[in-house]
């Protein structure tokens, strides 16, 4: 009954050695395949870096860093407004996404409900966040376009050259009129912002370009023209027409946000929010629960425990994750392209909250898609600048990780 089965007893010795040899050879081949394939990614990275460097290094100049895009002087086009624009957009993004993301992570990790229904909701929110991480960034772009740029058109349709919607603060409307002295304009405060233009027949109060109030008199054609330039500077022709000009303070605010850097930053915040939440959750999960127990045992409330124990302990991880997320935000082009448009003609950084902006990835995209070789090279040079910035960011993250690991051990 319990005699050894034939299969074990009757073994062909030659077959056994051959089989073992064959299997060992296969294993060795597989190992070499693994090494070769793992090397491919290294090769890819090297080819990428070398090709972009050789294409772009000739264009790395101070012009690139200090000047703006120019169609006329392609040679001397630069990316300074784009650097500023990226800074503003990513700054907005960080200000919104960091508190929101860390807050959500704290809520999900530290305030875990004990009740069944709430636990279900908790799981649902968690699944939802993992799903948000998988939504293509261009869909976030469309969300930003619909919600921030147009605000579902509740404030009226946006038209070209018209400040649509609700202006809330930080603006002054003026009529702009030419005086008799050529090239000299005066500004008249405008009380009714909806009126597009007005005609001047009566003397009126105005301000000169330096902001000093002056009284403007009317010269009727047919009567002798004043000859003194000082008087001519305070006189306009009867029937002169003033066009609207708007002066915006840096805190100028209106609804909808239109294609402003604010819209761009808010949209990017949506894109990186899931990343920040997930990485912060992981760092909080790494805080040993014995520390939480110790704090609770001393009579700290959950929030006090989070504030004084969990967050300080998880901070390096949260910072590393956030920096990596910001790296993603800086390089992200698709949602910015959708929200802020592909135009790159802007010659300065944003001047007020509702100002538009160019960002580095959009500039790279625009230049890369052009026919002229100069732009292609400029694009490569801009990529080098962008990669250097990303490298600095990532080194900071690595430094924090190592430095704090040492300090805590």
């Amino acid at each position, binding site marked *: 009954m319990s005699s050894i089965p034939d299969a074990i007893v009757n073994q062909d010795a030659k077959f056994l050695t051959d089989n073992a040899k064959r299997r060992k050879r296969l294993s060795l081949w597989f190992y070499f395949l693994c090494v070769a394939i793992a090397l491919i990614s290294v090769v890819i990275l090297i080819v990428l870096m070398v090709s972009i460097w050789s294409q772009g290094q000739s264009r790395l100049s101070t012009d690139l860093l200090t000047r703006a895009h120019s169609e006329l002087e392609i040679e001397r086009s630069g990316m300074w407004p784009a650097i500023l624009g990226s800074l503003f957009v990513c700054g907005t993004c960080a200000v919104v996404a960091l508190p929101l993301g860390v807050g959500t992570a704290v809520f999900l990790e530290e305030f875990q409900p004990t009740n069944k229904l709430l*636990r279900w909701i908790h799981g649902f929110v968690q699944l939802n966040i993992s799903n948000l991480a998988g939504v293509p960034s261009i869909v976030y772009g469309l969300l930003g376009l619909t919600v921030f740029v147009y605000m579902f058109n509740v404030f009226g349709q946006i038209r070209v050259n018209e400040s649509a919607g609700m202006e809330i603060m930080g603006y002054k409307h003026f009529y702009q009129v030419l005086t008799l002295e050529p090239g000299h304009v005066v500004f008249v405060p405008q009380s009714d912002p909806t009126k597009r233009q007005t005609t001047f027949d009566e003397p009126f109060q105005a301000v000169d370009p330096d902001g000093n109030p002056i009284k403007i008199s009317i010269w009727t054609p047919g009567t002798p023209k004043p000859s003194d330039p000082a008087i001519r500077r305070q006189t306009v022709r009867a029937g002169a027409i003033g066009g609207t000009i708007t002066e915006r303070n840096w805190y100028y605010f209106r609804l909808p946000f239109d294609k402003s850097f604010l819209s761009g930053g808010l949209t990017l915040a949506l894109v990186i929010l899931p990343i920040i939440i997930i990485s912060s959750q992981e760092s909080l999960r790494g805080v040993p629960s014995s520390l939480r127990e110790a704090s609770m045992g001393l009579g700290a409330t959950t929030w006090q425990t989070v504030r004084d124990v969990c967050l300080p302990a998880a901070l390096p991880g949260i910072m590393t994750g956030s920096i990596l997320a910001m790296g993603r935000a800086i390089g992200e082009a698709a949602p910015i392209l959708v929200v802020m448009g592909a135009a790159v003609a802007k010659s300065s950084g944003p001047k007020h909250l509702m100002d538009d902006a160019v960002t580095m990835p959009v500039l790279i995209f625009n230049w890369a898609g052009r026919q002229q070789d100069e732009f292609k090279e400029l694009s490569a040079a801009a990529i080098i600048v962008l990669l250097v910035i990303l490298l600095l960011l990532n080194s900071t993250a690595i430094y924090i990780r190592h430095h704090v690991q040492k300090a805590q051990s």
Partner: protein
Amino acid sequence: MSSVTPAIESEENSDALPDQTLIHIEKLNAWYGDFQAIHDLSLEIPKHKVTAFIGPSGCGKSTLLKWINRMNDVVPGARAKGRLAISGDASNDHAEINVLDPGLDVVGLRRKVGIVFQKPNPFPKSIYDNVAFGPRLHMKTSKSELDELVEWSLQKAAVWDEVKDRLHGPALGLSGGQQQRLCIARAIAVGPEVLLMDEPCSALDPSSTLAIEDLIFELRTQYTIVIVTHNMQQASRCSDKTAFFFEGKLIEAGPTEQLFTRPQQKQTDDYVRGKFG
């Protein structure tokens, strides 16, 4: 073997003053989800004495300990029924505390009932900040008052001499035994009445264990101490009263000496003689 000996005799041997009961536990049942961890348990814990909970793992002793200051609140599915009360105290001006009352101020309860855990768990902060953590939460103190309080707590916990020169150094740089005494200092810095200790020496080496045991003996003049332990020698060395738990039930409770020399129940006898557990 000596189950015939009447229990009255041992009470004569103990201190002249009758024990004042501080914590009353009556018909307590506790569950984790569907699992019942404690069955119909009644026990009285005397004031300013050391009470030890012994029993094999999973017998419910830690669960009971953690119910005394409601540390089980954060465990999903943990609930308890029955009476668990802490006597009112005029000198600490509070009335009787009904621990299981859902509306109870848990923060205040945990200030009065401190806890020390199995593994030393100092915060990754300085030694000073560890001890000052609780006082900063609960009281408004001036800098000098806080300094005084920190020194007093560290002295009480018999660790002052070793750390006084590096108060602002990291607490994680201390040895295991020092860390555990730091945790005790941290617990007494908020002025508790009861100290719960959940196997406080199980992660320590023998000499640190002895230091902690001496400390426990010292502290009982001012605090009511409840200690959970696996180690029967430890229970017999440093406790006044011992309660033996098995499978969620209280098998026997009495003065330590009596429980170890003349247990009333066979299970207790088997356990203290090392037949199981």
